[in-house]
């Protein structure tokens, strides 16, 4: 299996008119540059849980009369899929060539933090066609319900219908300015602007899905002004999880065009960062696995557009 980076704003050539309209709209309503605290209110009661609790819940879940809402979701594969997710969050795979990387980065963090919450949500979504997670109701459209289970040539996601349900539901629910012109799912939209995630949307989703204190620096078009980026990321990693919003097209080149649009296209979860003799070694999670790359501080600065740090609520209070 080969991990493949995904792009959000990649099909610019095809959608350039829409793209520049969106850029215009963005600049007018631009509000996400700088340091923003997206602190979720404390009235949310989220229980942290273990994989064991989640497995127990799944094993005792009553699936009778469950196959009415998702006609193409195979129950056997669904069960296999969610059990794997709660026990091996690392293998959460957003699918080959989709725009689901932002959703998968958040799912990876969620599955480590609250596998039981995920299990309750996804089983309820499967059985009832809708479900509530942290006081938010998710009710995917008919098109989503028909398509989940049918996505093909997306790597192992082909046989992971629960992931198809999950990602399609999240993309259907959360909307940002990049989704203005394509809000309704049509066949193949998992690789179009319908599924795209801009930075503000990502942070909003993080706030709704995770029980963390979230801090973000950066934007969709301007790099964050941080003198010592390596030091900043290292510091943030000490206190919690860090997601970087990067321009993946210069990290994982896809063509030989020298002049590339300087926009971020990918979300990665940082696992480890170290520096020896001005060479930074970065271990990050994306697309169902960890990757190690080595890069210079200047290159790191060039690719990073956003840094979102997730700090445990309790740790934050104790600080």
């Amino acid at each position, binding site marked *: 299996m*080969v991990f493949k980076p995904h792009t959000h704003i990649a099909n610019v050539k095809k959608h350039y008119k829409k793209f520049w309209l969106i850029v215009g709209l963005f600049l007018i309503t631009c509000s996400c540059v700088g340091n923003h605290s997206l602190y979720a209110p404390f009235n949310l009661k989220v229980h942290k849980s273990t994989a064991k609790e989640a497995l127990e819940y799944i094993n005792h879940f009553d699936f009778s009369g469950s196959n009415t809402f998702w006609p193409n979701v195979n129950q056997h594969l669904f069960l296999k899929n969610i059990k794997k997710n709660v026990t091996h969050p690392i293998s959460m795979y957003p699918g080959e060539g989709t725009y689901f990387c932002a959703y998968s980065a958040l799912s990876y963090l969620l599955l480590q933090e609250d596998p039981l919450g995920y299990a309750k949500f996804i089983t309820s979504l499967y059985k009832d066609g809708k479900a509530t997670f942290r006081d938010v109701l998710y009710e995917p459209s008919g098109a989503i319900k028909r398509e989940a289970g049918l996505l093909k*040539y997306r*790597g192992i996601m082909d046989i992971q219908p629960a992931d198809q349900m999950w990602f399609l539901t999240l993309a259907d629910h959360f909307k940002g300015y990049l989704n203005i012109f394509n809000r309704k799912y049509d066949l193949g939209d998992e690789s179009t602007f319908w599924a795209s995630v801009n930075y503000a949307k990502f942070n909003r989703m993080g706030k709704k899905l995770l029980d963390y204190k979230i801090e973000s620096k950066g934007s969709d078009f301007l790099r964050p002004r941080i003198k010592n980026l390596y030091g900043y990321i290292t510091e943030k990693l000490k206190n919690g999880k860090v997601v970087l919003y990067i321009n993946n097209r210069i990290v994982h080149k896809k063509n030989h065009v020298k002049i590339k649009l300087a926009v971020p296209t990918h979300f990665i979860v940082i696992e480890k960062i170290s520096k020896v003799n001005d060479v930074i070694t970065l271990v990050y999670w994306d697309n169902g696995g960890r990757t190690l790359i080595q890069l210079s501080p200047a290159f790191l600065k060039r690719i990073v557009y956003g840094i979102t740090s997730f700090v445990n609520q309790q740790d934050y209070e104790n600080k």
Partner: protein
Amino acid sequence: MKTNKNILLPVLFIAVMLYSCSPKNISTKYYYQNEKVLDSIEESYKEINSSTPFDVGFTSKDFKIVSLGILTDSLKYIYEFKVGEDRLADTLKKFGLPVKPVIELVMQMQSIRCTWISSYDYYTDEKKQELIFMSIKPVALNAPLSYKKYYILTYFQQPQYFDNNGLLLERRKLKRLRKINGEIFKRINDKVCYTVSTTYR
């Protein structure tokens, strides 16, 4: 009339230029002209990849920088080397990849301007299948108006389904076109398809 001629000639010239650079010229013909070497690259890659999964390609336009991705149980390592650099052999040794066959593969790829080779998993009736994805930057696609184009080949292990126009179909719903990497593929033979893409992976 003279004005018409003045306009017509440049228009005709541009049309001819555009046609000569069009992907239509790079089709099944290219594959059959280079079949031996293309199949040999695919065979070598498949054999090495079966023991240690990896992908390899050229990230520079002059085919002098090699990008190597090696997949282990816990991590994917991504390195870049200059062609012929000692570090490449050292890295291959470190990860248990056969040095001579990989370097020969890289040389073969360079000789035919093969930009990338990797494998992809897909599933038929819940069974894991693998296809080999290869992209080439032929000289014919190197014209100024088409320099962004890559000739992509996919090698399947099993015969595939195609419609009357030779377009690759999904197995489950035979009428639904199958897209790989967002591209529609055309038939070369039962197991090999091609497309022309703006990206090499």
